[in-house]
């Protein structure tokens, strides 16, 4: 009996091993290495100089650096711009595409396309659209007498331009999640409201929206994590510029590590952003739990 149990356990371990190895090599080891590195001075341009222990100096540098705080602020600005518009647009479009009208299934599928494109490609597509002289966007704006707008080359517009590209790509995510939630709502309360004569706005405000709230918060939660890590679109469109107008946290880390070769500072910045994102997640979880409890109670 004992023999069989230990044999089963051994087989289970053998099956688990590949996953554990991959996880260790690709995630756990790099993370531990980065943590180790964040307490050391390591110049990648001089790789043979020993990595000296510097205590929390890297962390102090990151937290007291104007550039990091600016990147953090830019990240949050971009998150606020994109997430707020994505929620409103996503819910609005979801309300439209869940109407029982012919062709809505096709429209819904078409609207999902941006989400399926790789962010680098999205960046390239928008690069063409934003291009100062040859871009379509300025061409169309010129037809109505506007512009030209220096979309990605002016500090005033660059962050907005990135936000627009991100909104274009990720609004379908909110649309899809909200549409699924809308379709799972029971139709009877709506019929009851129809008989009672409640206005469409009241029905949306007091019946639909409160029931969608947990779903919207979940979607926001998933998107917020992603938005905090935004990298590819910005790298393709502006590389963090002009000046540092679009330098978000991930670009700051990239610049420290692979432009200035200061791996220790880059690693410390990564851990600071990890802590921030953890706080963010905790906050979202709390509010999600609250809104779900409000529905259940």
């Amino acid at each position, binding site marked *: 009996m004992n023999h069989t149990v230990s044999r089963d356990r051994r087989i289970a371990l053998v099956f688990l091993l590949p996953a554990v190895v991959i996880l260790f090599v690709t995630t756990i080891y790099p993370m531990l290495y980065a943590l180790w590195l964040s307490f050391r001075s390591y110049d990648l341009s001089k790789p043979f100089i020993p990595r000296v222990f510097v205590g929390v100096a890297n962390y102090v540098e990151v937290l007291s650096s104007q550039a990091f705080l600016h990147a953090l602020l830019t990240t949050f600005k971009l998150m606020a711009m994109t997430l707020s518009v994505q929620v409103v647009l996503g819910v609005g479009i979801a309300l439209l595409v869940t109407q029982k009208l012919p062709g809505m299934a096709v429209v819904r599928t078409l609207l999902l396309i941006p989400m399926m494109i790789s962010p680098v490609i999205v960046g390239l597509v928008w690069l063409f659209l934003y291009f100062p002289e040859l871009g379509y966007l300025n061409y169309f704006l010129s037809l109505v007498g506007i512009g030209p707008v220096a979309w990605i080359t002016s500090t005033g517009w660059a962050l907005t331009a990135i936000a627009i590209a991100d909104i274009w790509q990720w609004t379908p995510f909110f649309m899809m999640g909200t549409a699924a939630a809308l379709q799972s709502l029971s139709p009877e*309360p709506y*019929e009851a*409201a129809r*008989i009672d*004569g*409640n206005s469409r706005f*009241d029905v949306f405000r007091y019946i639909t929206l409160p029931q969608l709230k947990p779903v919207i918060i979940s979607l926001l939660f998933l998107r917020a994590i992603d938005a905090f890590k935004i990298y590819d679109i910005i790298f393709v469109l502006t590389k963090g510029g002009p000046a540092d107008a679009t330098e978000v946290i991930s670009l700051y880390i990239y610049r420290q590590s692979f432009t200035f070769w200061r791996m220790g500072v880059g690693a410390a910045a990564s851990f600071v952003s990890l802590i921030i994102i953890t706080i963010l997640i905790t906050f979202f979880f709390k509010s999600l739990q609250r809104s779900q409890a*409000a529905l259940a109670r």
Partner: protein
Amino acid sequence: MSSVTLRNVVKRYGQLEVVHGINLEIDEGAFVVLLGPSGCGKTTTLRMVAGLESISDGQLEIASRVVNDVAPKDRQIAMVFQNYALYPHMTVRQNMEFALKPQKLADGEVDRRITEASRILGLEPLLARKPAQLSGGQRQRVAMARAMVRTPKVFLFDEPLSNLDAKLRTQVRLEIAKLHKRLGTTVLYVTHDQIEAMTLADKIVIMKDGHIEQVGSPEEVFASPKNLFVATFIGSPSMNLFQMTVEQAELGLLLTSQPFSVPVPSPLLSKLSPGRQVTLGVRPSDIRIAAKGEPGSFEARVDVVEYLGIEALLNLRIGSQEFIAQVAAAERPVPDQDVSVFFNPAGLHFFDSQSGQAL
């Protein structure tokens, strides 16, 4: 209070017609039950009255006003749904308030109506709770209160008890009856449960396949079913049916089904001629155990005895014909015994075997 009239009301979904020109008069203050099996069109009919489904053809009047194209909110109706249709994130009080919102009443009036409805339905201690914190019966009472606060002219109930367990069903049924007695509002009530229909209705409308089969008081539909469908649908256990042939005997016409026969009652003599196929219907409660050799009794074999406390159901057999009798539990025989049974002559129903219509 208000009357409801349906004139040749038809419902079609594309090519498919599901309600075929029904006519129905619901008097002011009456409690009318639409009764029928699943898919008979009863809920569709109710939803047409509510305005949740359009009327394909015909005319619907509420309080002598044609309302075919009137929005649900302007029909002065209130509806109670099968799964309560409460707003899950609102408290009991908010549910009622939201129903009243479009009427733009003064706060005092809203409070008065909610207090009144909660008192009648015993919801006062529950006003601050949300639907998820209530039992099924309580939720259904909230749904009724929400309908009540609007003081509608007609109450529509769509299978309001079918999500409740048997005990609660009896309890809420009684509450609905009391509520109707108290308010006197016209009620149109849909159910597939004949006990609900029999206990609540002033008038039962029995539907099948989008047609009305019979309209009548509970007594009428039980005692004088117009056809085989109504006869077997109403009554539990359902009516026993025997296929009989009219035969000429020495003393007059007989309905025969080997090995037993019954004389054709005099009112039917002129309608029947030898050779005609007739279905004889006898309710289990119209069959009793007779003394051996009692005139008009037959021998039957007891297959199974189902003891129900006060009474017992006997599964009997004459030849290959099986039927059920409902007798006092104290008089029940033991299984596998031969007994004499007697059909109460006043409880015999005769139907044309081909058309299924009562003779």
